């Protein structure tokens, strides 16, 4: 897998001030890809640009085109760049696609962003057969990681936890109301997140009517005066409480009549205020579920540690996929010899069959002619079966001698190899590769590709 280089910077190596200098819009990306492709010595290129990272993958003799990409845009990037070669570069792409290198490990957007980067590179004709196979392998790795580990499970932010809890209690909020008590920023965020569960209406209660009105506009809800807190709690199914009050706003004494008026329909309180606004004794009341910041944070921390455990298993998957990809490339290196050998044999078989048919053709009907051709093909296939298997095995075990010996033995040196195939048989998913990958930029064979 020689000649694959990665140069990039990410949230781990560069501050946002530097990242935003090199980040690219989709339009700029297209131009950058064409420029990269036109650079001397670059066969294929792909650029991944997200808010947390900009990475350039190039297939060339050196990493210089990748470095130039950054330094031409911002000299400040120097010192923040990382560089990986060959298998390490492939490993990095697999880790990135599997969300192992993300700011929030296990987040799901990154795979889409890698797919987008590959799509752009394909559209700009800068991604060839190699990048196509590399990316498809990266996508397959990411899928394995997602299905075989728990890396994507659990909520990673307080508002996500709130949504998950409410979902676990009520399923969805269709036909129900959410009350937003107080004007905290977190409260508004959570109210919006809860709206995703299909809440019918958001009722905003605040001591300042003006602030209540503003907040209601922000979250698409209705403002209610502070005096209507009790009726609002009777009406709502979930109450997000985040006032600046130094004492409890919701107490068991307040809730007794509320629950009675609700005919004891379950109710959930999410207390996002510090100091707390919902008396912890409320959680002891039947049909009342109450969570404070500490509870929500504990879930977030639990998710993070669970994901860290899953990440270990995911790393093993990535490693196995990198090895498999490298082995596949090794195997492909032996294939130009195999293709030449087969082409030569098939050519001879066709010619000999044609000669025979020319001699006896008149005496044979169509069926007979087809039988002669089939026999010639069968002889070739049977004779070449064992050499084919041996050559593939030799490639898999890294034996470079056998292909050379075979080429010498059969006089294959200088035998032409079909362009655009890299001497390789069709990919496991030829349709996908054909759709995704434009014609290989370099028609020359790459027998050293390993």
């Amino acid at each position, binding site marked *: 897998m020689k000649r694959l280089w990665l140069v990039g910077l990410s949230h781990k190596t560069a501050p946002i001030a530097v990242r935003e200098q090199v980040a690219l819009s989709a339009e700029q990306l297209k131009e950058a890809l064409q420029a990269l492709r036109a650079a001397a010595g670059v066969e294929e290129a792909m650029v991944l640009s997200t808010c947390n990272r900009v990475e350039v993958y190039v297939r060339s003799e050196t990493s210089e085109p990748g470095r130039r990409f950054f330094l031409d845009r911002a000299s400040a990037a120097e010192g923040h760049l990382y560089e990986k070669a060959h298998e390490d570069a492939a490993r990095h792409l697999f880790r990135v696609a599997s969300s192992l290198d993300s700011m929030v490990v296990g987040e799901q957007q990154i795979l889409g962003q890698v797919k987008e980067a590959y799509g752009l590179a394909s559209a700009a004709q800068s991604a060839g057969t190699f990048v196509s196979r590399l990316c498809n392998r990266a996508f397959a790795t990411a899928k394995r990681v997602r*299905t*075989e580990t*728990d890396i994507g*499970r659990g909520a990673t932010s307080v508002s996500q936890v709130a949504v998950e*809890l409410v*979902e*676990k*209690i*009520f*399923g969805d909020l269709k036909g129900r109301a959410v009350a937003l008590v107080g004007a905290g920023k977190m409260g508004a965020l959570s109210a919006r997140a809860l709206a995703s569960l299909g809440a019918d209406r958001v009722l905003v209660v605040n001591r300042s009517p003006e602030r209540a009105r503003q907040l209601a506009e922000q979250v698409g809800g209705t403002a209610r005066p502070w005096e209507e807190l009790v009726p609002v709690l009777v009406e709502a199914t979930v109450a997000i409480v985040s006032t600046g009050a130094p004492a409890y706003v919701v107490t068991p004494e307040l809730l007794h009549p509320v629950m009675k008026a609700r*005919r*004891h*329909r*379950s109710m959930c309180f999410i207390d996002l205020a510090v100091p707390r606004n919902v008396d912890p004794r409320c*959680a002891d009341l*039947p*049909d009342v*579920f109450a*969570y404070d910041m500490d*509870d929500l944070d*504990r*879930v977030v921390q*639990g998710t993070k540690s669970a994901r860290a455990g899953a990440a270990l298993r995911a790393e093993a998957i990535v490693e196995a996929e990198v090895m498999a990809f490298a082995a596949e490339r090794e195997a492909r290196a032996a294939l130009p010899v195999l293709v030449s050998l087969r082409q030569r044999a098939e050519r001879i078989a066709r010619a000999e069959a044609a000669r025979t048919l020319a001699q006896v053709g008149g005496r044979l009907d169509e069926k007979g002619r087809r039988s002669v051709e089939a026999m010639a093909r069968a002889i070739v296939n049977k004779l070449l079966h064992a050499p084919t298997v041996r050559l593939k095995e030799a490639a898999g075990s890294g034996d470079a001698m056998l292909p050379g010996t075979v080429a010498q033995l059969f006089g294959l040196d200088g035998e032409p190899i079909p362009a655009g195939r890299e001497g390789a048989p069709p990919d496991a998913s030829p349709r996908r590769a054909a759709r995704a990958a434009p014609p290989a930029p370099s028609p020359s064979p790459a027998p050293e590709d390993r």
Partner: protein
Amino acid sequence: MTVAILRVSALLYAAAAAAYIFHFVRPRHARAASVGFGLLWAGFVVHVLSIGWGCAEYGGWEFFNLRGGLGMSGWLAAGALLVLLRLYPMPGLAAFLLPLVVISLLPGVFGAIGARTGSLPEEIRRPAVTLHISVAAASVALFAIAFGVALMYLLLEREVKGKRFGALFSRLGSLDALDRLAQRLVRAGLAVWSVALVTGAVVAQHVWGKGWTWDAQVFFALVVWVLYFGLVWMRHRGIHGRRFAVLTVVGFLVILASMIGLKAVPDITQHQGDFTRREAIR
């Protein structure tokens, strides 16, 4: 032969339960749930065969005792579960309920099913008797499923309310869905139980000459009806969630206690196929 077929069916149910429990413990293995569903189907079909064979072998007598009644309820519960699993995508349901089905078959599996063989007496060979036995078994099956769902509710509620987001949290549906399901099952069970009471009265009128007697079994049947009717009425008045689940569990425990208790105490009831004391009751 009936017992042999029943044993195969019990084994299939047990295998299905194991598959669903495995899926519950390792939710990533979605295939386990599909395998469980297939095994449940197979168990259900084999169970039908055992019931058919039993009818031929014992002439219907086997349904007049606890073993046969429980077996019939288990079969109906398995059928209801097949329907529920199609309607509610909650494989966790099967992990909780299938063991109950297996338990219901145990008395039949480990003992002779029919106490007597041969044709039933002419006086009880009536459609009302068949209907009475079938609907009684069906309502017990429905209450058993409601019991399982209510148990699931209570366990999940304990985790959610106690802020211990453990295994159940990620494996069971929402509390609200479980609550509504338990409520529907209780309502359906009550309706079917009512039919069982009415048909029972019709049968008693013919067999014993009285629609109502102070027989212990008949009395307990009424108590269960009152209990579940109270539950449905309370639900209508707003009781739900934890309290509804607790009462659903209690209701089924009363049914179980009455079924087993009435069998354990000799001569406490003349119900269940004992037609020899007709004169005594009169």
